[in-house]
């Protein structure tokens, strides 16, 4: 494996959790729900995946556990915001605070243990293609899932009837309700999908990216994923581009730290966060594009009239 290949590979590994979490949140927001608890669901996915991998000796089961944990955790958010119509922003924050606390407690006995790594699954024939084969077809299952998720969500939102209904709910839940679309049920499903994606993204961190458990190991990635959705103006393919751009920034700063180019490491570590602010600013410069793409009901509660 040459140097370029190695660097591209690390960028892809850094981008995968961002991509997964963002694509899940994209579906949630397209349905008109703003779940700011991505960070919390992600960190719950990370700790559950690590714990189950340790206890069962199988990283694959760990990944599944991460997915389920994220999904269950998102149901808490769903119950509060969809059934009890609580404020979505505040509930999302609560989910993050609760997730960071609960994961810290669960993970306490796992700190410092060597983790299990999810093995990569080479795809026969395709993985033998020079250069590209190693990058695209000799990866871990979570990477494949992330790519399938982008293609699948893109198809679902813009090519399927159910996707059209979901977007209709996101743009006007009252009209959609009047047309007989099941608003709350659809939103529950969207929120659960978002939770599953965030949980799997967290699992990627603790059993692929750095196979170990560190408290708060998501380090703001859930928030960056939220920013990516805005940056991508709610389009799956742009989320893909954005996630890889961020993967490149975070790997770039790590390499710069390793080379010791005379800039304090703290400044380099701050780069991904500053880059997030920068892309948010750049995207909001084009106000028309944002207005056209933002789901009109985003963040608003819906109580069906009876």
């Amino acid at each position, binding site marked *: 494996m040459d140097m370029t290949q190695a660097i591209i590979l690390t960028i892809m590994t850094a981008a995968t959790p961002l991509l997964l979490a963002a694509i899940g949140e994209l579906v949630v927001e397209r349905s008109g729900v703003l779940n700011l608890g991505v960070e919390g669901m992600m960190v719950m996915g990370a700790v559950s995946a690590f714990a189950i991998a340790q206890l069962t000796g199988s990283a694959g089961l760990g990944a599944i556990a991460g997915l389920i944990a994220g999904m269950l955790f998102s149901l*808490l958010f769903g119950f509060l915001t969809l059934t009890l119509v609580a404020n979505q922003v505040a509930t999302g924050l609560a989910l993050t605070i609760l997730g960071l606390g609960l994961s810290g407690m669960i993970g*306490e006995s796992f700190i410092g243990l060597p983790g299990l790594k999810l093995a990569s699954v080479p795809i026969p024939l395709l993985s033998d293609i020079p250069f590209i084969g190693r990058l695209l077809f000799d990866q871990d299952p979570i990477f494949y899932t992330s790519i399938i998720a982008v293609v699948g969500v893109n198809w679902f939102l813009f090519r399927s009837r159910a996707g059209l209904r979901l977007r209709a709910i996101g743009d006007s839940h009252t009209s959609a309700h009047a047309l007989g679309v*099941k608003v709350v049920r659809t939103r529950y499903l969207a929120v659960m999908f978002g939770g599953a994606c965030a949980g799997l993204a967290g699992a990627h961190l603790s059993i692929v990216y750095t196979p170990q458990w560190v408290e708060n190991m998501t380090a703001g990635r859930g928030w960056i994923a939220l920013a990516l959705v805005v940056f991508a103006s709610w389009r799956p393919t742009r989320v893909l581009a954005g996630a890889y751009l961020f993967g490149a920034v975070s790997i770039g700063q790590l390499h710069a730290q390793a080379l010791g180019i005379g800039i304090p490491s703290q400044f380099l570590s701050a780069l991904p966060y*500053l880059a997030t*602010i920068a892309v948010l*600013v750049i995207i909001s410069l084009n106000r028309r594009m944002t207005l056209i793409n933002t789901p009109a009901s985003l963040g608003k509660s819906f109580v069906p009239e009876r």
Partner: protein
Amino acid sequence: MRIELKKRENMSSLFSVLSPFIALGLTLIAGVILFISLGKDPVAALYSFFIEPLTEVWSLHELAIKAAPLILIAVGLSICYRSNNWNIGAEGQFIIGAMAGSVLPVVFHGWESPLMLPLMLICAMIGGGAYAAIPAFLKARLNTNEILTSLMLVYVAELFLDWTVRGPWRNPEGFNFPETRNFADNAVLPRIIETGKTHWGFGFALIAAIVLWFIMRRTLKGFEITVLGQSARAGRFAGFSDKKMVYFAFILSGALAGLAGISEVSGAIGQLRPVISPGYGFTAIIVAFLGRLNPLGIVAAGLILALTYLGGEAAQISIGITDKVTRLFQGLLLFFVLGCDTLIHYRIRLIFGAAQKGSAA
């Protein structure tokens, strides 16, 4: 079983008082379940968590010290949230405020002047306010999402503090520890009473809460905040500027967070360290909501959340459970608070049996 909501004609004044207490009760019940599942005696655990810290004079002082930053930050945040400005970066404004306030005692070490403390406090408020002005500017000018920008600036502030205390501000006589010089006596925030450790930060918190309560209740500004928060459009018709309100809310809450930062550093810690806050800026969000965004309610809520910090430490020592329980309790509490607030605006009916035809679940 289904849950159905029916909008109340008027807000329930009964539940707007009761809901925080119901939430506290539910949190305690969750605590009992948690302690039993950890194999601990729930009564002893809850006692050492919530009662024991209140039984000694010194720990009451600790309570006031921990409550001070929570109340100061949360009253500022309540203005933000009431006016529909989602500042969740108070932790960063706390840090930058503390650093701005520390310039004089660290860089100009040895400057003997009675102006030292007042200038420190002013610098901290300017620093915190200026840092909060960044997301405010981006929101007012470019419509950039303030939730994400204010939160990202927290990470930046943490890293900046880390670099400063390990680099340029490291104590030259400190054996290479990552800390600044200890503040000289004239830079230390005095105690309120001689016999206990509670410093003036708690006094500032109470003053801020009362002043903001008065503003919200009795002045046009308070009315403007409420109107713009409920409907920016209605506010514009009334001649209020929603853009100016963005700056007002952010800079005010940033300044208060900055004041909390310097009070903590100068009154409780005595120097800058890589980590100066156990997440006060985030816990204050819970305080603001538990206090129902009412400055006086926030004083009570701040004391309760401060108790969870002390209780966590006490429970770790006396019954050997991890102090991570604190964060868990705090998160649960916010959840229950938000859930119970539904009772204020809606009647909740439980419907047993299958869904009727035509009514979407």
